[in-house]
């Protein structure tokens, strides 16, 4: 887990300063790059079953899944 996190962090930091012009962003506009793949129901199951949460202003409620 720590290795994965560190790898992602290093990859981001090492390449974070490059400038990409708007006309170079064709790949970034692909639907699979921008769409949210986790549905509302799936997200709620994770929120209930994991003690951690990302917080946010969205209403939270009793899980009902004791």
């Amino acid at each position: 887990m720590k290795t994965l996190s560190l790898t992602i962090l290093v990859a981001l930091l090492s390449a974070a300063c490059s400038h990409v012009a708007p006309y170079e962003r064709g790949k970034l506009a692909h639907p699979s790059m921008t769409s949210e793949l986790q549905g509302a129901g799936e997200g709620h199951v994770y929120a209930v079953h994991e003690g951690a949460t990302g917080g946010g202003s969205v209403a939270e409620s009793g899980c009902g899944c004791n």
Partner: protein
Amino acid sequence: MLAAAGLAVGLASSLFARPAYGADDEGKKDEPSADAEKKPADEKNSDEKGNGKKRLEDATRKRASVETAGYIDTNNVAVLTPSVSASVENVTAGASLKGSYLVDVVSAASPDIVSTASRRWQEVRQAGSLGGAYKPHEFGVNAAASFSNEPDYLSYGGGGGISQDFDEKNWTLTLGFGYSKDTIGRHGTPLSVFSREVNRESIQGGAAWVVNPSTLASAALDLVFENGDQSKPYRYIPMFAPSVAAQAPLGASIDWVTANRQPERPLEQLPLSRRRAALSIRLAHRFDGSTLKLDERAYYDSWGLFASTSDVRWIFDVTRRFNIGPHARFHVQNAVSFWQRAYAEATAPRWNLPEFRTGDREMGPLWTATGGLGMALFVGGASEPSTWAVRLQVDGMYTSFLDDLYVTQRSGTITTLVLEAEL
């Protein structure tokens, strides 16, 4: 439900309709939009000849989706969650409106509920949200409101935020604030007779940036401040003599607990405030013919719970109308500081309970591994197949509870079917 979503989109779109290329949009003409970039040049030309006039008149994009999610596990919990969402966006004006509504139907007879002689129960939760955003240029604002309602729990929330683009949208910084008020009741008892309130404030700060022509990244820090008594008024905690508690076996059966516990059975009691912090990092990379998405969340709270959640999805384009790919998720956490497998109490003449006590397994040490497969079928027109899509995601989950009574593991499945349409 799709008809309702379509009606909502239609009504909202009348508020957002606006000429696509007005004087105010002069500077945007040369910027390729996301829509334009994902279409081959010959198809764009064809569109411009056939539908150019229509597109010049209305730059509003209307989307609606209907989702049904089902969850079932080996602890006799079943959840069915139908939901509908709709959004309207004017890409040139930079304005958008989005709403959603879902229903959770939960049916359960969990081990710790059984131990308190409760029968199988069923509950319905409704939740909705409405949000809007306005970002005509580099600076934008957004606001959202939400509610959640079930027989013994009521929640209202709202929030707002700002965002600023830099360096030709290579960087975007965001800042947000949220507030929600929860009312916790007890099933079968009116809230006017018994209720507790929990106030929740949250601050979110984030950055998203273009790493290279194929990679997007984002990082976000969420801070949540919760105040109030979150203890479940239906959750009773078995107590043991100190010598017995020390010998309680992992996954002790209901019979063992019944035979060895003290007669007292106090309610759960949690600390009255909780501070949460979560750092999330997301990376999305587009290969030739596939997309890789990585998410990592590190979490800590003032109750002493540390957690890490990693999520990976890899989507492969099989054809222009079909993609498929694996999904994997791994979550691991320790226990809150006051967690005990078996709580001990001092015996007579001085009855002395631990100040904080819980039977919520999600506050104990555990890990969960999730794996599955997702696929999407795009059934829109020839020029843009993805305007209509059918998505299916099937995942299996396995949880190992490392220091609990009653259960040591749980297996479950989540199935999600989504129909999306751009109207």
